[in-house]
């Protein structure tokens, strides 16, 4: 038999990645994926592998990379614990629609089901949290399955896929031929849109007196930021964002009226229940956005722009459904709508903003009290970065504050764990974001709790020199849970107080420049110094211990019951 034209399954995996234009992957080696790592060694001039310090870190890094670059994030890990450690990141990518391809090694096919060393049923485990997954036991199947994996991950509503490859399939020889996947007969990634529905929508828009837009990540994933901007500028409709829609429209845009949801802005929440027409664009009516569904925009006609048919009428019954890709549907609609302005209606948002400013924002951004606030830290970051930075946030109070106050000039600049709310997301995601957008400033804003969930990724920063800027807002509490304990559990602070280590010493152990700020006078200059640094930098800011995030929609309440205090 002539094997001269044949390559190993492991080499085929690398060649597939190169065919898909992948030049950077994240991962962690181990027994069952060693043949692939051996090929990575040979191909290191074409394909960079970033060794994270934990497989979860690899998934979040791949997510950060994808969210800022629009490319598919790729992760490799070994079988057993390597594979199970991916699960949190996969679930996060699934709920936040992030395209990701995870490749796991698996025990040799003759050992499947024998409880072999480092064997887990990762296909079974990952099924509910992947868009698609597949196990390969023959080298010959590798090109077709990986081509399918990339196509599924990035098409339609993106998501994570997992391909599990047994070790014998990695060793086996095969003839390599690669054909990109362009369609799958049982899968329709982008549903056809209906001109009739778009016409109906245009009629509702043209006759609406108080129309209101809530946009989500669909606008960003669809690369439809310009189409969206043209649409709102023509119709003059005030627009608010969900947490994942943030940065899809510049913060300073006159029609950008802020954030909706549990800790969103006062006006957009209250006026959701006052508008006569609600346009939901690339968002999915998450419960953190809608509050109590029985009292959500009941007075309004609702138009929903959505690529995923399963999202239609899932949480909110809509009057007009515009299925399809917003990149195509928004321009069609823009053609049919009248040029308009809504000065009186927009004034309402401004007057609600004034109330919110007096009650909340003023003290957040320009506090008169001694303790430092999270808000003033974000304000200083805005000033130092001029709104051009990518802001990566973790989960909790700091996340809400950062999303509320961070300034964005460009899209794909806000990276956060929205749907799953994964603490520990930010540090590795920031590494991925910096590598996905190397010319941009990347600032990770993290709480002292979440920081310690993936703190080992400082090792990745140390090894790669990846110049991320890390700001830990330290209140020595798991702040969001503590806030709920204060408000709803009579201040019984069960396991939310944290006795923290010396973060500066830890950063220095990784050779990362570090500074601690405890006084307001030091804040501005320290943030400036951090932003100006060309190297990774760690800044710890001691903030007020028991501050609360407002406005807030208590769970079970309606959006219009949003509280300012």
């Amino acid at each position, binding site marked *: 038999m002539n094997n001269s034209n044949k390559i190993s399954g492991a080499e085929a995996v690398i060649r597939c990645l190169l065919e898909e234009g992948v030049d950077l992957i994240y991962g962690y080696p181990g027994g069952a994926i060693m043949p692939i790592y051996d090929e990575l060694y040979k191909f290191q001039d074409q394909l960079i592998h970033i060794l994270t310090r934990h497989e979860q870190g690899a998934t979040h890094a791949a997510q950060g990379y994808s969210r800022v670059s629009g490319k598919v994030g790729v992760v490799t890990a070994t079988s057993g614990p390597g594979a199970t450690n991916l699960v949190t990141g996969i679930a996060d990518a699934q709920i936040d629609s992030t395209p990701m391809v995870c490749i796991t090694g698996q025990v040799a096919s003759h050992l499947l089901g024998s409880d072999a060393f480092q064997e887990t049923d990762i*296909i*079974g485990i990952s*099924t*509910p949290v992947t*868009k*698609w*997954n*597949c*196990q390969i036991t023959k080298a010959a199947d590798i090109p077709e399955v990986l081509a399918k994996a990339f196509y*599924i991950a990035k098409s339609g509503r993106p998501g994570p896929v997992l391909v599990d490859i047994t070790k014998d399939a990695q060793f086996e020889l095969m003839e390599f031929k690669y054909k990109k996947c*362009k*369609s*799958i*007969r*049982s*899968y*329709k990634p982008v549903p056809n849109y209906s001109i009739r529905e778009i016409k109906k929508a245009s009629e509702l828009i043209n006759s609406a007196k108080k129309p209101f837009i809530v946009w989500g990540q669909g606008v960003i994933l669809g690369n439809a930021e310009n189409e969206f901007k043209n649409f709102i500028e023509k119709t003059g409709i005030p627009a608010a964002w969900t947490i994942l829609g943030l940065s899809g429209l510049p913060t300073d845009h006159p029609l950008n009226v802020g954030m909706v949801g549990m800790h969103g802005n006062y006006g957009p929440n209250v006026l959701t229940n006052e508008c006569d027409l609600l346009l939901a664009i690339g968002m999915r009516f998450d419960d953190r956005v809608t509050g109590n569904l029985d009292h959500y925009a009941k007075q309004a006609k609702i138009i929903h722009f959505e690529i*995923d*048919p*399963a999202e*239609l*009428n*899932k949480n909110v019954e809509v009057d007009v459904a515009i299925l399809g890709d917003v990149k195509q549907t928004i321009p069609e609609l823009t053609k049919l709508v009248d040029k308009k302005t809504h000065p009186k209606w927009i004034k309402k948002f401004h007057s609600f903003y004034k109330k919110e400013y007096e009650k909340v924002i003023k003290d957040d951004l320009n506090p008169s009290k001694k303790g430092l606030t999270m808000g003033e830290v974000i304000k200083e970051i805005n000033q130092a970065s001029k709104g051009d930075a990518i802001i990566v946030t973790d989960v909790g109070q700091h996340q809400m504050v950062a999303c509320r106050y961070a300034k964005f000039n460009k899209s794909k600049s806000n990276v956060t764990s929205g749907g799953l709310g994964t603490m520990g997301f930010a540090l590795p995601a920031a590494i991925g974001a910096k590598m996905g957008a190397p010319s941009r400033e990347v600032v990770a804003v993290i709480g002292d709790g979440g920081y310690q969930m993936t703190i080992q990724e400082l090792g990745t920063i140390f090894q790669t020199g990846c110049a991320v800027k890390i700001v830990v807002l330290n209140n020595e509490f798991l702040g969001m849970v503590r806030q709920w304990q204060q408000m709803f559990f009579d201040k019984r602070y069960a396991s939310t107080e944290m006795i923290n280590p010396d973060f500066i010493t830890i950063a220095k152990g990784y050779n990362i420049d570090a500074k601690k700020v405890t006084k307001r006078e030091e804040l501005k200059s320290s943030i400036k110094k951090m932003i100006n640094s060309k190297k990774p930098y760690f800044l710890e800011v001691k903030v007020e211990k028991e501050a609360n995030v407002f406005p807030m929609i208590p769970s079970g309440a309606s959006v219009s019951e949003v509280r300012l205090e």
Partner: protein
Amino acid sequence: MNDKINTYTLSIYTENNIGLLNRISAIFLKRHINIESLTTSQSEIDNIFRFVIVVSVLESKIKRIIKQIEKQIEVIAAFYHTDKETIFLETALYKVKSKSLFDEKHIQKIIKDSQANIVTVSPNYFVIEKTGWREETEKLYVSLEPYGLLQFVRSGRISVSKKPMNISNILGLNTEK
């Protein structure tokens, strides 16, 4: 709205793929819904498989579940029907001691009246098969129980819809050619 709990028969046409059963059952598991019966088989089209699943849920819920099922990559199409909209059957097997067949004259009448078939007779036992609605197989169960059932088993529901489901059309639309 009169949103009430109904029994629905789901017909799911799929590519044959390892793990798809897991993916579909996970959709019910996630929503804490009990699968009352599940059958998979070849469908009317070559290499296309068909799942028939019976669940009792609210109508508002079944609509969302169907969309979640259709969202799975290897699912070609999914439908839900009420009992009125389908023709459906189950098959039950009853294993009884042969002695009863000869000693108890009555048992032969039961078999005849219920239009059941005797599948096999051996010196020790005989096996009766009954295909029909749940009430019919249950009635036979109740009748035979006093004579000592050695074994009893009932299949999942199989069903065909009264209205066409047009799978070939759907496939035709989705193929490149």
